[in-house]
């Protein structure tokens, strides 16, 4: 059986299991991966199924730890207190609110190069503010997801470029300007597009009526300590990378959670962790399933077939291929897309400035974090605002995603001109 047929059968089996039999996405992916192994003559391929799922081991740990952290912020009253503070500051200032929110969301992504980190830290803080000021839940989630993706692309740390750079021996130097050219206009346009119409300017008494209970008077600045711990440790992992011990993002979130135990309202820590695990489980199972699916897809030749098929597009369609394939492959993960497709595409465009090409490709690959079934940025943003159906969030991400895509492709096309100014 050819690689293409096996791959298409795997996709078909997944679709039947997930959409017709309504099995959980993670389980459907795992079963379709197993079917792919059998169809490809690889038997049960137990080692490959387990090995593939370990591709997301780090991500799974980050999600679990971040979920616990989020629950701690909620249970201790820290989240409500911060929401109250932000509402009091911004209830009459629409534009400053939106721009501040966008910068806040982007900031952890800029420092860590991870959209997940952005959604699960500052995204959690701004969501209640946006919702209380009139933005619908799903639009708030869309704004958080898009901000997180822009943060991941923005300098100083763009892991996607680093991954592509490693594949073509391009040092991570001179990327600040091209990345800012891509990100700054988009951050402005997307925050206004998603928020300006719906965010209301409200009166003082209205603001008071929606103000959540703040426990600041009881605990003072101690309340902010868990956030300070997480942000300082994350920042120092990047800014002081040469002297800071690498404890990893999961450990940072766990430390922040433990600090949270002593900084706000008392709560039952074990119960909180159980709730966090329960809520995170569907996403975690999807990641495990995707890992299995990708490994079997590679094992049976499907990945290579897909990559060469995109690269075989005629030159006039190359940009279309980039625009479609990189976000699509992002369903594996944006990092996977950068590695598997980003490197061949940089090489296919080798006559252009590699720094500009890599910057633009990283923006396009970043869209992969909206692509189901993994959709790391989108799924987490949905989780943050309590929306179970991610597709409702995705609906509002489509136009901003096209903005990003057009800018990315535009920069690729205009690379020879930009090259003269950079």
């Amino acid at each position, binding site marked *: 059986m050819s690689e293409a047929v096996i791959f298409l059968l795997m996709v078909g089996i997944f679709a039947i299991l997930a959409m017709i039999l309504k099995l959980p996405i993670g389980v459907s992916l795992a079963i379709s991966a197993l079917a792919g192994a059998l169809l490809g003559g690889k038997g049960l391929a137990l080692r490959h199924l387990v090995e593939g799922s370990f591709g997301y081991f780090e991500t799974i740990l980050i999600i679990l730890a971040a979920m616990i952290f989020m629950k701690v912020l909620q249970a201790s009253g820290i989240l409500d207190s911060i929401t109250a503070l932000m509402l009091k500051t911004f209830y009459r200032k629409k534009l400053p609110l939106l721009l501040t929110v966008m910068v806040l969301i982007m900031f952890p992504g800029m420092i860590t190069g991870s959209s997940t980190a952005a959604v699960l830290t500052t995204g959690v803080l701004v969501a209640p503010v946006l919702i209380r000021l009139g933005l619908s839940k799903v639009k708030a989630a869309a704004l958080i997801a898009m901000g997180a993706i822009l943060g991941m692309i923005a300098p100083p740390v763009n892991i996607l470029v680093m991954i592509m750079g490693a594949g073509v021996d391009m040092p991570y130097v001179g990327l600040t300007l091209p990345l800012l050219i891509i990100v700054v206009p988009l951050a402005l346009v997307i925050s206004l597009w998603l928020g300006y119409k719906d965010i209301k300017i409200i009166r003082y008494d209205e603001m008071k009526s929606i103000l959540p209970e703040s426990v600041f008077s009881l605990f003072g600045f101690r309340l902010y300590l868990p956030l300070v711990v997480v942000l300082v440790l994350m920042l120092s992992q990047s800014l002081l*990378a040469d002297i800071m011990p690498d404890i990893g993002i999961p450990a940072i979130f766990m430390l922040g959670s433990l600090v949270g135990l002593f900084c706000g309202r008392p709560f039952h820590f074990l119960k909180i962790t159980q709730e966090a695990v329960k809520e995170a489980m569907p996403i975690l199972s999807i990641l495990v399933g995707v890992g299995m699916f990708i490994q079997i897809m590679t094992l049976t030749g499907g990945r290579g077939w897909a990559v060469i098929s995109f690269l075989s597009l005629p030159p006039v369609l190359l940009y279309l291929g980039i625009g479609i394939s990189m976000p699509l492959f992002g369903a594996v993960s944006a990092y996977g897309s950068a590695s598997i497709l980003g490197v061949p595409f940089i090489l296919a465009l080798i006559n252009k400035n590699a720094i500009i090409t890599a910057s633009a490709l990283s923006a396009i690959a970043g869209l992969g974090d909206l692509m189901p079934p993994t959709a790391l940025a989108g799924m987490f943003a949905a989780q943050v605002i309590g929306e179970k159906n991610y597709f409702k969030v995705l609906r509002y991400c489509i136009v901003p995603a096209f903005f990003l895509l057009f800018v990315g492709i535009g920069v690729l096309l205009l690379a020879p001109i930009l090259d003269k100014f950079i």
Partner: protein
Amino acid sequence: MKKHQATAFLLLLLAALVCFFAGREFLTMHEEEAVYPSPHLTIKKRLSDYFPGLKNSPGDSSVYIFEGQKMGGTLLILGGTHPNEPAGFITAVLLVENLEVTQGKVIIVPRANNSGFMHSDPQEGNPQRYSLSTPGGPRWFRYGSRLTNPIHQWPDSVLYVNPAGQKLSGTESRNLNRSYPGRKHGKLTEKIAYAIMQVIDNEKADLAVDLHEAAPEYPVINAIVFHENSAELAAVTLMTLQMEGVDIRLEASPPNLRGLSHREWGDFAKTRAVLLETANTSHGRLKGRPSATLIINGKDKNYMKAAQLGLLFVPFDEDGISLKQRVSRHLASLRALVSGLHELHPDLCIQLDNLPNPIEVQKVGIGPYLTPSK
């Protein structure tokens, strides 16, 4: 027992079975293939003899030393810096099993990153081993990962600032060829790099060669990458190889690409630093079905298509680029480097006897030069 409890119990049992059988398969990666050194081996050491900080760690590895009766130059050869680049590793093994040195000294480390041989990359679907036919039956060799095993070095930081000060993505902290000149008290990979620097220093290596492979779509391929202190040697080597009909090119080590062997060996250890690249389809991004056959015969229809599209930096046709061709290329380059060193510095002569003939290897294969399993 309630129904949901029974379901939970069954699922736990299933998970335990999966852990057991998959775990057993993963653990086989810790098994090392046999290497049968030539009777002319002078001494076998370990990297930890040069840097005790590696002792009893998965980063420790065998160092084979061949010393001639006559004084001469000293050559260090590294295979297995990236354990998913088999031509470098197999070339080093071939040398260990065949070499006789009558003048000078040759030091060979076949498994430079031993830890990388102990796992395979998730989502790459690679085989855990491949076999080569010898007159006495097949012999198996490990196919590992480009990076140190995360079991031995974890977690990866978000950003990695390597010992030479270059900022890289976090996973590169497990890439030996981004970790030079190493750190004495650093991560495992940095300690391995540090140990290799100690080998170069202690043995006073005049020439150090890092054997690699790259995907055919990678621009630096079929190449000699040289530190500026080896420019003349690289040029002489190129001429020798061209006269022998070996198509190869020179690439100067970029000064701003830090942490790599061809840069830091030259800058810090002052040895003549050279890195050799051949084309390996089995770790390319366009590869078809990963398999032991792909590693050995290097045939892949995706790469044929890529060649037709002009996406490759090496010629590629239906014959593929086999392991024996790649090993032969490494052997020819090593021979030419040693001869070039002698030509430029007669006092640094290294006399390699019993070096497998590159043309013969290409003709009859690698197997006849390997010692049959004992």
